[in-house]
């Protein structure tokens, strides 16, 4: 989906800082579509990516409010269409030996890989844009899907020049 806003935050690797940011979004009443957090190259620093269903002004405002949270090192918002967003999904499907070829075909079409096979289930991994991942989930829906785990999107803004959102944890004090 190309609408909405992306909010990127670099923060101390602390659960408390994360809850403060989540609390800020709740308090400012901004609907959130996805949230993904993970470590960065800098020890003690995490990167948080939020996909917000809101307009640019509101996203920019909340970025400035998040900048005020102690433990946040940088925060910036940009329209989602100005960035590249990717998510990963793991899909557990019940093993059905008669339809194995059909499943492989679907996986091939989406460049999904089989990452685990047990007696009764197969786990597929797929990554791409939210639309691509959703499309894959629809494609495998005709098999017996047992469980889906999606990572939420991570994103980077496209350009460097004029990009307020280029947050490099390496250059921060």
């Amino acid at each position: 989906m190309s609408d909405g806003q992306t909010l990127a935050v670099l923060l101390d690797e602390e659960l408390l800082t994360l809850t403060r940011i989540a609390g800020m979004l709740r308090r400012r009443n901004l609907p959130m579509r996805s949230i993904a957090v993970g470590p960065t190259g800098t020890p003690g620093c995490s990167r948080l990516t939020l996909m917000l269903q809101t307009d640019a002004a509101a996203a920019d405002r909340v970025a400035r409010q998040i900048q005020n949270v102690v433990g946040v090192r940088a925060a910036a918002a940009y329209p989602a269409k100005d960035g590249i967003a990717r998510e990963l999904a793991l899909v557990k499907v019940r093993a059905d030996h008669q339809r194995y070829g059909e499943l492989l075909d679907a996986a091939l079409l989406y460049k999904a890989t089989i990452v685990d096979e047990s007696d009764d289930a197969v786990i597929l991994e797929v990554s791409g844009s939210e639309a691509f991942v959703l499309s894959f989930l629809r494609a495998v829906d005709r098999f017996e899907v047992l469980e889906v785990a999606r990572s939420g999107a991570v994103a980077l803004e496209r350009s460097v020049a004029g990009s307020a959102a280029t947050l490099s944890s390496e250059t921060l004090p």
Partner: protein
Amino acid sequence: MAETLTGSQIICRVLEEQGVDVLFGYPGGAIMPFYHALPEFPGLRHILVRHEQAAAHAADGYARASGRPGVCVATSGPGATNLVTGLAAAHMDNSPVVAITGQVNRAMIGRDAFQETDVIGVTQPITKHNVLVRDIGQLADTLRQAMAIACAGRPGPVLVDVPKDVQNQKAAYVPAPGGVGAGSTAIAHPSRPSVPQQHALAAAARMIAEAERPLFMVGHGVLLAHATDALRCLAERTGIPVITTLLGISAFPEDHPLHLGLPGMHGEVHVNRAIQHADLIVGVGLRFDDRVTGNTAQFAPRAKIIHLELDPAEIGKNVPTELGLVGDARDLLHQLLVMVRPRECGAWRAEIAGFARTRTEQYKGDLSPQSILTALHEATGGHCTIVSDVGQHQMWVAKLYPYRRVNTHITSGGLGAMGFAVPAAMGVHFARPDQPVWAISGDGGFQMNMQEIATMVQERIPVKMAIFNNGYLGMVRQWQQFFHGRRYSATPIWSPDYVKLAAAYGIEGWRVDAAGQTADVLRAALSAQGPTLVEFMIEQEANVFPMIPPGASLSEPIEGEPAPVAV
């Protein structure tokens, strides 16, 4: 030189090191080790309040009057949760308060132990920052950081939660240089883009030069930044009239010809009309609160807005802003001062003078709020700090007392916490021990924290209390009269005999029923040693006028009683 101390002793040493001389608190199980250490530190005067809410308000009052962090202390669980209203008030009004709370032993955390509350979770949205100290090695630095964060930039409350076993643990204490925030390690903070603002300042100066109907609208940020002199110089250089918001009162002398008055819901008609006619509003250190703007879609429809503000998150939050300048109000005003050319706004000021109407007093009886506040100004000569509570009297105190000295009006504006005045005034006393402090409340708000008279008596705190008694929760009653068909649901409120109440606490008390008694009683109250209490029996259904109905535009004031409704 490191020495080995308990966590409790470390807390006290750091408070001393940071220049703290008074704490407001209440002991309890999880904070007992701290109270065990406290007597070893006679430089830390502890004020035993009667309810932890009062400790937080008192620390807030101290902070607002002194500019230094106010400190309050409470135990875990109910002690900590009782601080909540006071912390929220400090948060909304940007007051540097540091709260220290006891917590259950680390091994018990998360097990729903006796008097365990997740106070970090509870206070997260109403503090600027809060920390649970898990490691004694971090205790001193965490406290120093708490003081620094409370005061840095846009001030606010910080809570430090210290488990009982950390208070008892021993560790090396290394003294740090004195002073607020000194010795703390750097705090992770986003680097603000240091955009050179020269062109923005030049643009602001140009807009100020070109505007035909400019206004200054100033808030608490001017007082917090000590920018009152800079504001006055700039106003005088440009001839631009100055509007002070509720929290901006006393940032600009009210006897100055450029002073206009209070805007917004209970603002004067001429002030709101000036806003609606202005072509430029220069907002300094305020957030364009909804009580100030009325309906934002119809707020200042002809005006471009320049916003000078320390917190970039405020710019454009509530009203569309033509030009935002981020920075310390005093710095920005000083820079503007050298860039603007002297001008007069004669025609515009004459136009505003045409708006001004003499407000016809609508009080029945002679003991009007106006007469009381005029007498109070005469009795004190303006040499006092006025701390108001919340409600009708708060608006009268804001509008009818002529503030001429900087930072002499203190009130709970953003949160609007009833019960604020009495305990906050105790805090103000410790910041200004040589000046009278008046706590003015309604009969509703006074009864929310009147237990603190005992604190004043025990700790010899000479706060002068005044109650505007109309037998109603007056502001709610006024809204019921105007917007709820006069259905006075749950607003008539009984009071005890306040003169006898004063006597029960062993202090002097007076009841005033007629304007003729006011001056003598005020003089007696001021000259009496220690705390005193004066009750003013005001008209029961007096209203605050004008009034902008909630959600309406500033152009639609109500200036008189509604037509009686058929019952």
